[in-house]
């Protein structure tokens, strides 16, 4: 039993931690939920349909977007289910009072008041029997409330995925670099450079806010490729001149950041068409954001690369023992060049996604991102000494960080405290990794 437990912990330790975190935040954000909008309307329609006959219905809701959707849905669904909508009150209680008065004056009966939770509390409805005896005794039907954790709401989960997508995508390249035994500090700056470049290309060459789709694609590709060039340059410095990766990418971090601010002239570039936000904010597939879909696709590809392809084996071998790899005929320099170029390309892609999410480009994007990215990789179980690590691990690492941040936001933890907690979590993850290594010896 004990070796089994050990193996489970070492292979799936971080996923377990992630699950526990999710469970914890689910419990602490357990609260009353009332279905709103179309969902609420559907519930109310079903309740009215169960009454049978042709009930006469008054719809009451506030003018919030959710409530407007509620009203609209009821207006189309109720007649189909045999009910008659005799009046609609939107906005203030005053509107409901007027509707009731009109109804009473016309001498009609009222069977049901269909309203949202908020409208159900309006005082107008509490004394109908005495105030408007002619209407009879209408039944108030509201969507039933239920208990469900805020954390586990679909919208929140998608929000987590969307928030971490950029960091997770860049972490793919960082995982490769760290597996080769290196480090890439330049990704945050390259993200900013890419965001500024794509914004400038759109503004200056693709026609600004009137840019065509083709122009947007070309501008994005150009920005990503230029970042890839910067990564290839770092890779060359590391392989040809044997400068430590830490130094080379530290230099590239400063150069990239400086260039980004210079190219943006210290401003935010916002002359970007509405259609550009498709990548960052759009959600075409089952309302999963496009950036998240892209993230999962990239992880699947990277996982195949690392576990099934020759290049993946070479990346591990170079990090595990670069001399043994060289003497076994592994093209060590080319492998390293690939890793740094891939890392920069993905940072460039992250920049384009961020420009799309924020519909602008600025030099201050991606500040400190390199550290969050490295944290995701390390929390995901990749060893900084190289040769070990897995892509799914990094994804889990990224999600662990995102879940902690999101959970603390939901439970109203101060942002400074959040930093402290995050720091301790990273330390804990590495500690877990250490213990696991000791257990293996």
């Amino acid at each position, binding site marked *: 039993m004990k070796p089994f437990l050990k193996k489970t912990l070492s292979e799936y330790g971080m996923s377990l931690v992630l699950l526990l975190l999710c469970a914890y935040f689910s419990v602490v954000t357990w609260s009353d939920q009332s279905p709103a909008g179309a969902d609420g309307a559907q519930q109310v329609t079903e309740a009215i349909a169960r009454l049978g006959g042709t009930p006469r219905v008054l719809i009451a809701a506030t003018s919030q977007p959710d409530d407007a959707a509620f009203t609209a849905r009821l207006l189309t669904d109720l007649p189909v289910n045999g009910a008659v909508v005799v009046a609609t009150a939107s906005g203030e209680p005053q509107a409901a009072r007027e509707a009731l008065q009109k109804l009473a004056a016309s001498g009609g009966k009222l069977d049901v008041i269909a309203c949202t939770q908020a409208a159900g509390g309006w005082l107008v409805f509490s004394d109908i029997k005495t105030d408007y005896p002619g209407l009879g005794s209408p039944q108030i039907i509201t969507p039933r409330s239920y208990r469900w954790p805020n954390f586990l709401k679909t919208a929140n989960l998608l929000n987590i995925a969307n928030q971490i997508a950029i960091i997770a995508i860049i972490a793919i390249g960082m995982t490769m670099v760290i597996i080769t035994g290196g480090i890439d500090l330049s990704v945050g700056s390259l993200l900013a450079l890419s965001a500024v470049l794509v914004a400038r290309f759109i503004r200056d060459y693709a026609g600004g806010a009137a840019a065509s789709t083709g122009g947007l694609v070309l501008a994005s590709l150009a920005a990503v490729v230029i970042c890839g060039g910067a990564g290839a340059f770092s890779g060359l410095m590391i392989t040809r001149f044997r400068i430590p990766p830490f130094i080379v990418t530290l230099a590239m971090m400063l150069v990239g950041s400086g260039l980004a601010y210079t190219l943006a002239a210290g401003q935010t570039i916002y002359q970007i068409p509405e259609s550009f936000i498709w990548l960052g904010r759009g959600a075409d597939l089952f309302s999963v954001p496009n950036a998240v879909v892209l993230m999962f696709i990239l992880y699947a590809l990277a996982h195949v690369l690392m576990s099934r392809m020759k290049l993946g084996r070479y990346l591990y071998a170079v990090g595990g023992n670069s001399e*043994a790899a060289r003497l076994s005929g592994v093209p060590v320099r080319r492998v390293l060049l690939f890793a740094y170029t891939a890392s920069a390309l993905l940072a460039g892609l992250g920049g384009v996604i961020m420009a799309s999410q924020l519909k602008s480009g600025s030099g201050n994007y991606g500040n400190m991102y390199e550290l969050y990215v490295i944290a995701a990789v390390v929390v995901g179980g990749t060893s900084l000494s190289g040769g070990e690590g897995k892509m799914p691990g990094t994804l889990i690492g990224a999600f662990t960080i995102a879940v902690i941040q999101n959970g603390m936001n939901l439970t109203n933890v101060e942002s400074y405290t959040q930093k402290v907690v995050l720091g301790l979590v990273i330390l804990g993850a590495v500690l877990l990794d250490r213990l696991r290594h000791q257990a293996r010896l």
Partner: protein
Amino acid sequence: MSAGAPLLAMRGMVKSFPGVRALRGVDLSLEKGEVLALLGENGAGKSTLMRVLGGAHPADEGTIEMEGKVVTLTSPQASRAAGVAVIYQEFNLVPGLTAVENIFLGREVTHAGFIGRQAERQRAAELFRRLGVELDLAVPCRQLTTAQQQLVEIAKALAFDARVIVMDEPSAALTSHEVERLFVIIRELRSRGIGVIYISHRLDEVFTIADRVTILRDGQNVGERPIGGISRHGMIGMMVGRELKDEFPARTTMPGPVRLEVMGLRRGRMVQDVSLTIRRGEILALAGLVGAGRTETVRLIFGADVREAGEIRLDGRVLDISSPRDAIAAGIGLLTEDRKLQGLVLRHSVRENFALPNLERLSTRGFVIMAEEQAEFGRYVEQLRIKIPHGEERAGNLSGGNQQKVVLAKWLARNCEVLIFDEPTRGIDAGAKFEIYLLLNELAAQGKSILMISSELPEVLGMADRVIVMHEGRITGEIENARQATQEQIMQLAVA
């Protein structure tokens, strides 16, 4: 201290690692002023037993007594405090520190908090004088040769004035001259009442230096004999559990036409104008003392270092070799001297290590064909009788002999035309050695050209068709018919 108690007594030592029971209740005793040879095949548990004694791996069960008093050795510090010094096969030196700094690491000679560099230097110099070697005390250890680093290790243990000194394969990296000097030291230690445990695969040395032998097999003590009460054959028989007939298998095939030609190879002081040829189906031995430039020469042929001058031809065609990759593509393979640093990725699985030079062949359009990789690996595991629990075992967890077999499998699968073996049997037990000799012969019979570096003269004479001897970066002689040559002939060329 109870009268008559041995200096060191280990009783019922048990130690398990995941998947392996390395020690299954070993007893061992050592008297004052005794040299005990500890023998056994690789994986028999010798190194593990000594690691237990050195506090590197605390034992699962068993008691250890020093002069009748029970001691617990759960850390290297505890062992040191109990008076045990273990010189491991892998060095324990800080590469960036000098020999002096390494020797006094952790027990620096200080005056009011400042290191007494002069005093340390003098003591270190004195130690090396006793060893009979000259060493640059001012350079970092990483600049020393393997043999020199080994000497620093020995000096370190001597400086420690331990009552029990364990030497795990101390002679593996030494030339015979240096080994003799080591023996002088060991005899001196013995006369001072220090107990020495000497682990070696070289049985000649055991007969020269040891008073008594203890033989391990499969984690158990299978016998103890005074040195006068056992023959060489008897020892090998106890180690392998069977009788070995010949140390070197006979070969019948004759070498064919010239295959590899190396002309005017040059790099720095270590390789000066080296030319040699190897024929089809020939085993050429490159002999010489440690530091003669043999390893450096083969590294140039393999493209591991960049040559300053020289030409390499295979079947008359000039090869453009500027990296190991080029050499491998041309059909040249190199089994390095240092398996752990250069031959294997220790943290990766045996299977992945095996596949590394063969991935080009084992993949299509960049994808590794896992089934084929697995099947081919399985074939070689069986053929070479590699002992592993499963293919996913980490290379670092294997014994030396099995590691060497994995490296061998790597290159055999590559089907190289020219194979360079740098000390192929270093640190390998008699049984595995014989298997490797058989394999060398088989490769030669297949028409491969083999270049073998070996510091063991009987091996050179027993295996090679022809011997080339190097000294200080130059070829000093060639012996055409190795089987009729003598060790003295080679030695004369090697020290010339």
